[in-house]
């Protein structure tokens, strides 16, 4: 029997109070991350991937309600008490944001930012924290760490600041890192550097990662497993390499088809229609209006997760269309 995963979301629903009623933001999301594993959560803007992360950190804004079960190391995150929640957030998990500059107090030095948290929670004293921060900064390729500690955020470039954020995330030795589009706000040339550093660090330290991105190719390249989200639900889950090689859900296939190729010059294709939000989806499959394979049943009935080829796919016709999808995607 395989051991229980480190982190597991089961049947998560997130609803937002809206004009007397409720709007669904995330529907029936289930996913798990094993110890040392990295999992990619891929989807368009508004597909609910960031909301899921926020729910996992208990950071949902007022007026939203999360239902279901989010388990970390056996404990239920949604019912953690004040102290346990603080401990979970500050020591067990860490969050790396898309925009590093917004998440650091601009009037404090980098050193103060890095050490304040771990010193305050009593994990280490100031000297130890400074020393460890310096060592980590060297690990993520920041030269002249001692000087950087005395600098202010505005004196650092975006790429450098994101490395500082990686240091901040690693400093309390968390077991799981949520990376919410950590390279999206960076310069293209810096993106791959920062991504490589992040990967190297989490592999070296055996830290698990839940990597949120809209870049399916990137996610497939850096993670062990993928979960593809559309309109607040996960439509396909499976090993990363297999998903990118042989997508089984029409949406995944559509995404893969859309990517530009450097091998040949061709017109960029797009999935027809526009992405819908979870609350706009009707009774049927939420992807049905844009799906080239949609039939009457797709529009009428919400598909359940089906297991096929070691993957989970939410599509009525997955068995029929699997081979045709592969053709289209390649």
């Amino acid at each position: 029997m395989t051991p229980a995963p480190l982190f597991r979301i089961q049947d998560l629903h997130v609803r937002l109070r809206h004009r007397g009623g409720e709007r669904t933001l995330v529907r029936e999301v289930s996913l798990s991350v094993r110890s040392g594993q990295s999992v990619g959560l891929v989807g368009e803007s508004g597909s609910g991937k960031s909301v899921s992360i926020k729910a996992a950190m208990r950071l949902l804004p007022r007026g939203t309600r999360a239902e279901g079960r989010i388990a970390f190391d056996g404990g239920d995150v949604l019912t953690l008490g004040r102290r346990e929640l603080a401990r979970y957030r500050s020591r067990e998990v860490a969050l790396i944001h898309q925009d590093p500059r917004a998440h650091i107090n601009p009037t404090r030095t980098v050193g103060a930012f890095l050490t304040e948290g771990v010193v305050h929670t009593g994990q280490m004293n100031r000297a130890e924290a400074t020393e460890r921060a310096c060592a980590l900064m060297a690990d993520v390729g920041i030269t002249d760490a001692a000087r950087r500690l005395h600098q202010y955020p505005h004196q650092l470039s975006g790429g450098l600041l994101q490395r500082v954020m990686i240091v901040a995330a690693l400093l309390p030795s968390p077991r799981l890192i949520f990376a919410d589009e950590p390279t999206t706000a960076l310069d293209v040339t810096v993106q791959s550097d920062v991504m490589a550093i992040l990967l190297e660090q989490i592999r070296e330290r055996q830290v698990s990662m839940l990597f949120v991105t809209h870049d399916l190719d990137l996610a497939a390249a850096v993670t062990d497993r993928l979960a593809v989200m559309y309109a607040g639900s996960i439509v396909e889950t499976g090993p990363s390499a297999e998903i990118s090689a042989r997508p089984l859900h029409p949406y995944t296939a559509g995404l893969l088809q859309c990517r530009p190729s450097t091998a040949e010059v061709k017109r960029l294709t797009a999935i027809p229609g526009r992405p819908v939000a979870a609350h706009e989806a009707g009774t049927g499959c939420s992807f049905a209006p844009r799906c080239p394979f949609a039939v009457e049943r797709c529009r009428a009935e919400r598909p359940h997760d089906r297991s096929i080829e070691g993957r989970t796919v939410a599509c009525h016709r997955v068995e029929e269309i699997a081979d045709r999808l592969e053709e289209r995607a390649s």
Partner: protein
Amino acid sequence: MAVTLGTAGELTRRRFASLGRPALIASTLVAGGLTLIAVIGPWIAPYDPDATDVLAAHQGPGARHLLGTDSLGRDILSRALAGARLSFAGPAVIMLISTILGTALAIFSAWHGGRVDRMVNRLLNVMFSVPGVLVAVLSSAVFGSGFWAPVLALGVVYLPYMARVVRSVAVRERHRGYVESLQLAGMSSWRICLRHLVPNVLPIVTAQGTYGFGSALADFAAVSFLGLGIQPPAAEWGVMVSEGRSELLDGALQQSLSAGTLIVVTVVAFNVLGAQLSSRSGGRR
């Protein structure tokens, strides 16, 4: 008066803010110089400000008494210099009270948001509607005239001005990502407010405090002028304007005029400086 933030006050403030760097330098020099006088005034006064000399009463400006003497023969220049201390001490304490309480209320309101924020705003609106000098006069009537009754009352009256301005900046800061990061790092709300939010709203607090200081000085002098604050024979500008009134009939303008001019110059200097600081603090767009 306390109505400086009404529509007309707001326009004046914009005008002050648009004056630019020369106004900043000039107002800093004037406000700084006057503050220095408030500190060292009694020591640089050429005469004892309370020494009467009936034989030298009612003198016009001259070589011995640069600004002349009053009806008791006291040197007006010495009284103006020495009186600066009391005239400044009043608004200083007023602003200290309103700044500390107002900032605390603003941060509290911004931090909790939602219902708490709405309640605080409503409370501030009620406080805004109360005329400042009237409250100070009432306070003196109930608790007796002197320094503390009007000062404590005006400290509360000036609170909403500080709270409203600081709250708007604090709300913006509170929703910046770094606050969330600090929460995730396990820090308590108290610590985040005191160590991060308060320092980050200090520029606007300083600007508003400076702006309010000028208005508070005018209000405090007004209460003394009405005979409910500082009592004669103590040297204070409001008292001097009041005492000089009887001499106006004799054509001796210098006492009321010099003290009145000092009040006006101080108010304008601090108002301009405050507007300049706030337009530079990034707190106002």
